[in-house]
């Protein structure tokens, strides 16, 4: 666009400063990171903030309502079907849900990035093979395969995280492959090659730093994806196992009383919604800020 190219002329600031300025002006990014930061803090300090032991049950105190809806301030968000403090479970649940998202995204990120960068950098036959692997992966029905695996190997946190990690790498591979292809053909990479730098060195020092932005974007996407999928698996009874309070599992447990105590599903549902919302905002923000030419 005419306008933006001209407007850059006047800026004499460094790219880093420009980035920071754009980031600070991007309300989505700011809201996203603030919310996510808050949730991370909650997760980290759950043992200090939680008013009760999230696993302590009291069968005589079941389904206490939210404090301002007729409950007590002893249990501000009420209690669940086993009389456990809902607020405490929610706070601890942040840990589980974040862990699931983060670890799954890291596993899939590692697999996908290795595949994608390899394919993009070497091209040719390597690329063909990787593309084939990606197609195979994409053609496998994720939910179905995840369910089958969890059903076979039992639904522990480890299994769920591993399954999701091994199923969600496709976006990483696709995006990393494209980004690497683009960067590979750039002059500075060509010159590094001409200078005789080793392949590993080129990939680590020239390619990786430049695909990092895209990676952050995909990580956020896949984190959100993993968390949502875990909730779906939990709903179908094949997610993480109780008494772990993942938000997905809390929704799944709360759904039994959907018609009678809707707060049981609304509270963790809202928490999950905010988490996903924050992650998506962050991802969109990073994309907008780091790649202004792609800004919609």
């Amino acid at each position: 666009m005419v306008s933006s190219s001209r407007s850059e002329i006047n800026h004499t600031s460094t790219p880093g400063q420009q980035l920071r300025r754009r980031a600070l002006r991007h309300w989505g990014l700011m809201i996203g990171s603030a919310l996510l930061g808050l949730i991370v803090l909650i997760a980290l300090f759950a043992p200090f903030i939680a008013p009760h032991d999230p696993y302590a049950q009291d069968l005589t105190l079941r389904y206490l309502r939210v404090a301002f809806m007729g409950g007590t301030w002893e249990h501000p968000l009420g209690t669940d079907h086993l009389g456990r403090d809902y607020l405490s479970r929610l706070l601890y649940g942040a840990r589980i849900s974040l862990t699931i998202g983060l670890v799954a995204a890291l596993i899939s990120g590692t697999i996908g990035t290795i595949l994608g960068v390899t394919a993009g950098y070497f091209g040719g036959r390597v690329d063909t093979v990787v593309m084939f692997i990606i197609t195979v992966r994409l053609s496998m029905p994720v939910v179905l395969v995840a369910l089958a695996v969890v059903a076979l190997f039992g639904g522990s946190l480890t299994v769920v995280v591993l399954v999701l990690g091994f199923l969600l790498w496709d976006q990483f591979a696709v995006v990393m492959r494209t980004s690497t292809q683009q960067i590979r053909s750039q002059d500075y990479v060509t010159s590094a090659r001409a200078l005789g730098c080793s392949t590993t060195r080129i990939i680590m020092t020239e390619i990786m730093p430049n695909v990092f932005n895209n990676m952050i974007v995909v990580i956020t996407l896949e984190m959100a994806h993993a968390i949502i999928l875990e909730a779906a698996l939990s709903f179908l009874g094949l997610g993480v196992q109780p008494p772990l309070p993942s938000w997905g599992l809390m929704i799944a447990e709360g759904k039994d009383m959907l018609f009678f105590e809707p707060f049981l599903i609304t509270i963790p549902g809202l928490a999950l919604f905010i988490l996903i919302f924050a992650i998506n905002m962050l991802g969109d923000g990073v994309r907008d800020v780091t790649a202004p030419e792609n800004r919609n």
Partner: protein
Amino acid sequence: MNSLLSVRNLRVEIPVGAGLLKPVRGISLDLNKGETLCIVGESGCGKSLTSLALMGLLPKVARCSGDRLSFGGQDLLGLTERQMARLRGRAISMVFQEPMTSLNPAYTIGDQLIEGMIRHDGVSRAKARDRAIFLLEKVGITAAASRLSQFPHQLSGGLRQRVMIAMSLMCGPDLIIADEPTTALDVTIQAKILRMMKDLQAELGMAMVFITHDLGVVARIADRIAVMYAGIFVETGTARQIFDTPTHPYTKGLLSCLPVPGKTKLGARLGAVPGVVPALIGGVQGCGFASRCPLRQAACDIEPELSERGDGHSCRCVHDTPTLRKAEWATA
């Protein structure tokens, strides 16, 4: 005056984050039927936006204003988008710089050639097709009928530009605005296309506004020339006047960049205008060319008016004509 196109003090302003960008700062021109006006300038001087402003095709963010913008006696500034659309392609048409991307890849060239005529003239497809074939042959495309079913990607750049030119002629416009139509082409093809355009113009009696940065092209085609710099015309005149007696230091600078057959000695250095076009945010203080001008002086802090330098030849400079004519560019 009974000119076809008459422009007075045309301005284009674009609000950007840091202020108001003023890429076109008040230009005026008159164009008669069958005449060719070349607007010459470096990239970024506002010439493309000028052409878009004439067509009413400015980006939405841009604001266009002026004292007068009349075409065939009709005031274009007062027209609605709808009325303007009826005019575009029919009375005024445009040829763009990028033949590679200016055609829609998804449709055949036949389809793209005839759609404007069907809309404006309400003719049948068959009739429009006949006209398209006729014009394709006119622009020098062989086997024109079979070309109609081809897609843009199947044609070379030169052919595509010929198609674009044919397309602009479909409704027999009174004015063609050509924005660097040959820049993206090979030099040999450039020459052919230019000759063809000149011939067609003569044959069909159209007026043409030809925008280019290439004085070599200008020499081949122009009746009159306007040299544009930083959003304004710094020198206007007939082709002869500009080439023979360039007056503004910028024009002289541009001309010194041009090898002249028979005048420029083999191996001699060509000139170059040092410096860059100033940023156009918030307007320009004083003469926009001052920072690059060898004749710069204190008076240049005030922007000079375009002043008559004899027989319709105008120049925007504080210096008097003899001083200007005398001055030589030190080759860089």
